[in-house]
């Protein structure tokens, strides 16, 4: 039986497959270059699409792995009813639970890794910003990790503290501190991802029960921070100027926007056909941030619509899964993942269509990037797993089987609420 989880993963797999093909096409160049770099791979690997096919397979594997994980159980939202005594949990119990909850480790790890990018010698500088980190032979962006960690952390907090989220100091401030620290550190080197993380986090806070005006009051300072980040960085000012008038310097700051516009114009509605695009020989970031114009150039409006369509399938099928889940944590996790992917896609496409200034931000699951694919795949796998869990709960789950146990469980939850000082309605 086909469930939402399957559709979701199929859509993600479709984007990955398209990505492998298009990166293969975009990576073509006259007389060596990217193809040459790939030639150390075997002929079979070449036939399958080279390095990126491997990454895509890894991403699919991560997605399947994620879909088998009990998210709620992993983060302590599923009571071990048999072992659980009645009544409020002791401090020791809570500490034990905290020890097995991976969230703390993830938060600490992400913050550390992001901080490490600032350490000279460890950070790898690509295109003038040191947002990369070497881990053995691989390099990856800690901001990617930070993105997903914050989603999980905020969902955890909002669900755990659902009763007090409307209160400023008890509910809002702790996640804000974390967001400020995480997004702020990312923002310094990677404005686009920083803005993305911040925006998604604020939206999740509102969804998680914070008062909207309290969150809203944070927006002006946030915008001020972004403006400050732009003004203090010469290349960001340049990008802004390039956006305002790309034709002022077509070979310099306006190069990327103009080449992107040329790609759309050259392909036209019908497209040049796969592999026949020309812009990839001009766009330096053709396989990564500017893959979408290449898709549009070679596959035309249909190709662009396919990408947007698959993204919309992920969003709405994901929303259907969120609807199926009945508890706040599941919903917030699912929502956080969807919002991150959706907002990132919107930002990327807005950049390449020159609607907003150029920012280095990838199109999820389409722009080349091994770690990005694997992590995005894994997070979508988690959303799929929510569907599996909801299906279990709604049909033959443990609650359904034993009315008495359910009563006990509810009583325990009430006890929790009382302990947290929330009035029981």
């Amino acid at each position, binding site marked *: 039986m086909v469930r939402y989880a399957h559709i979701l993963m199929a859509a993600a797999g479709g984007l990955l497959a398209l990505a492998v093909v298009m990166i293969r096409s975009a990576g073509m160049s006259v007389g060596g270059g990217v193809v040459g770099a790939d030639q150390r791979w075997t002929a079979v690997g070449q036939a399958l699409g080279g390095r990126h096919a491997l990454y895509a397979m890894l991403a699919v594997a991560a997605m399947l792995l994620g879909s088998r994980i009990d998210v709620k159980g992993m983060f302590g939202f599923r009571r071990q009813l048999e072992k659980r005594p009645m009544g409020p949990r002791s401090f020791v119990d809570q500490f034990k639970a905290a020890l097995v909850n991976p969230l703390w480790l993830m938060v600490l790890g992400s913050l550390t890794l992001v901080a490490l990018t600032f350490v000279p010698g460890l950070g790898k500088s690509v295109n003038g910003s040191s947002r990369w980190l070497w881990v053995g032979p691989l390099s990856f962006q800690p901001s990617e990790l930070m993105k997903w960690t914050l989603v999980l952390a905020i969902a955890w907090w909002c669900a755990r503290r659902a009763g007090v989220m409307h209160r400023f100091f008890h509910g809002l401030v702790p996640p804000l501190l974390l967001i400020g620290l995480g997004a702020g550190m990312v923002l310094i080197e990677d404005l686009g991802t920083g803005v993305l993380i911040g925006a998604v986090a604020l939206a999740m806070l509102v969804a998680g029960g914070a008062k909207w005006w309290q969150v809203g009051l944070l927006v002006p300072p946030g915008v001020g921070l972004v403006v400050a980040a732009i003004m203090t960085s010469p290349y960001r000012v340049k990008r802004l100027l390039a956006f305002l008038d790309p034709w002022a310097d077509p070979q310099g700051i306006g190069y990327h926007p103009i080449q992107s516009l040329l790609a759309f114009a050259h392909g036209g509605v019908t497209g040049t056909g796969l592999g026949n695009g020309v812009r990839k020989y001009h766009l330096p970031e053709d396989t990564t941030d500017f893959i979408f114009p290449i898709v549009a150039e070679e596959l035309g409006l249909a190709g662009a619509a396919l990408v947007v369509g698959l993204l919309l399938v992920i969003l709405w099928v994901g929303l259907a899964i969120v609807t199926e889940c009945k508890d*706040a944590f599941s919903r917030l996790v699912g929502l956080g993942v969807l919002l991150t992917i959706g907002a990132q896609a919107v930002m990327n496409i807005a950049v390449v269509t020159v609607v907003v200034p150029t920012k280095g931000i990838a199109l999820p699951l389409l722009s080349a990037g091994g770690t990005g694919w694997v992590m995005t795949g894994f997070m979508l796998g988690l959303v799929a797993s929510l569907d599996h869990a909801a299906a279990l709960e709604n*049909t033959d789950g443990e609650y359904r089987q034993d009315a008495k146990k359910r009563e006990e469980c509810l009583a325990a939850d009430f006890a929790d609420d009382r302990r947290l000082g929330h009035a029981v309605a």
Partner: protein
Amino acid sequence: MPPAPWPDPPTGPALKPPQRDAARRALWAGRICVSFLTIALLALLGRVAQLQQRPDARVTAMLDHQASVHTLDARRGMLLDRRGRPLANTRVAYRLFVDPAILDDPAGLSATVGYTLGYNPVELEMAMAQRPDSRYVILDPRVPDPKIEPTRQLVASTRGLALEPYLVRDYPQGQLAGQVVGFVDRDGKGIEGLERVFNDQLAGASGGYRLLRDSRRRPLWIDRAYEAPHDGNALRLTLDLNLQQIAEAELMATLDKFNAKAGQMVVLDPVTGDVLAMANVPRVDPADAGNLDPDLRRNRAVTDVFEPGSIFKPFVWAAATELGAADPREMLECSAEGWWKPTRGPILRDAHPHGTISWEEVLVLSSNIGMGIVAERLGKQGLYDIVADFGFGETTDSQLPGELPGILRDVEGWSWTDLTRIPMGQGIAVTPLQVTRAFCAIANDGVLVTPRVVVEEDATEKQIDPPSRVLSPDTALQTRQVLRRVMTEGTGRKANSDRYEMFGKSGTAQLPDFENGGYLENGYVSSFVAGAPLDRPRLVVGCFIHEPDKSIGHYGGAVAGPAVMRFMEQALDYLGQNPADAYDATLAAQ
């Protein structure tokens, strides 16, 4: 009754209020956010469609810049004579140019190039100094063939110096048949002569392609629009270059001898109508097309008309004989005084009084009075029909450019003067080609052929009008025999050949004085038209000398006749005609 497997209705777990509220709130927030994202994505898709369909003008301009358009020149077809010898062909030539902006040693260039390739360094310096900012200074518009190889070597070692290939039209025969061949303009389009008339066949369709280039202008690939060039078709003319050469040589010699202004010689095959030679003197060189006197570059054999004079008499004579208006042996009273008053119209005079002579002798002695007497028997309409039948008053359909129909007024407009003057070739204007072609009818047993300049390789495919018969074979032969007498005892004695039996007729016409009316005192067109051999004519030659010096000679038989004779002897030798019969006949006669 067995217990139901699911005791509770499937409503899901009941959550405590804060959890339930949070979950609801999360769902609603999610719906709103996802809706916003959806709207944004769809809007961006619309933006993509906009960028694809209506790109900025500057974007479109840059797109064009990404591709470079290259043309592939097609070669113009060759012009060949009837035996495949080239009259015009197209080949690659090179021009040498320099881009002073990227020269390593601008000051030393003129010395280097001049020394190595033999140009005058001063001229090179001047060429560069005239256009100081130009990045395309032509040093030699057409590098001579022997210099190409050394130039290539120098170009290879000198930055900024380059050879540029382009197509040129060559005329390997030089001035030979210059006016007939015509020439092309700078773009290779035929603007005169056969080059113009058959431009569509000769001109190829040039091809081209668009080459896409990457950011460093390196070529990527050809962008869809490759079009192969199609070379033009070669055209085989009916001209025979040997005959053309003989004709032009004889004509030039005649012009020199008689100090004449211009001359034409038209040589036709009387059976097929092939134009075997068409000479115009003074000659022009098609390669030097730009500097030609427009008067000279016309093919005057078809573009100029003149009053034919006595040369016109054979046509009226033959047709009148055919119609029975007069019998060759009939004696006509042609006035012993040398003048005759027609029934209506002014007095007619002969050069010498002839007295009573036969109709045959009227032609042999070229009597104006005799022609006038018979013309009165024919009447205006009868005479007009004869003249029109022989193709006068309309073009010959030779396909030669600028051909004129001549002037033949409508019979309604004829005066009584015209009735007696037209038979002696006055009051009518013809082109040299018309006269020669009409004479072909007499040579071709009475069938009027259409002159043609292009050999039709597949004549069976083409619908052609059957040639019209204007004389019976008997009358045609009879006329030829009388015209043979012209050569032996009439005005053509000086043009008679010892080796071939020629038949012909001379003409001496005064040129009209366009300023004062009447005729010029010393302006003549001396003409002679002849065919040979008598029994089975292979060639008909018309020779027309404009304004010979009267003090040296002006009668057609004396001026144009010998040229025709000399041409005929050489041409028939060349064509392999056996002269024995005629030679024997001449010997026997002696």
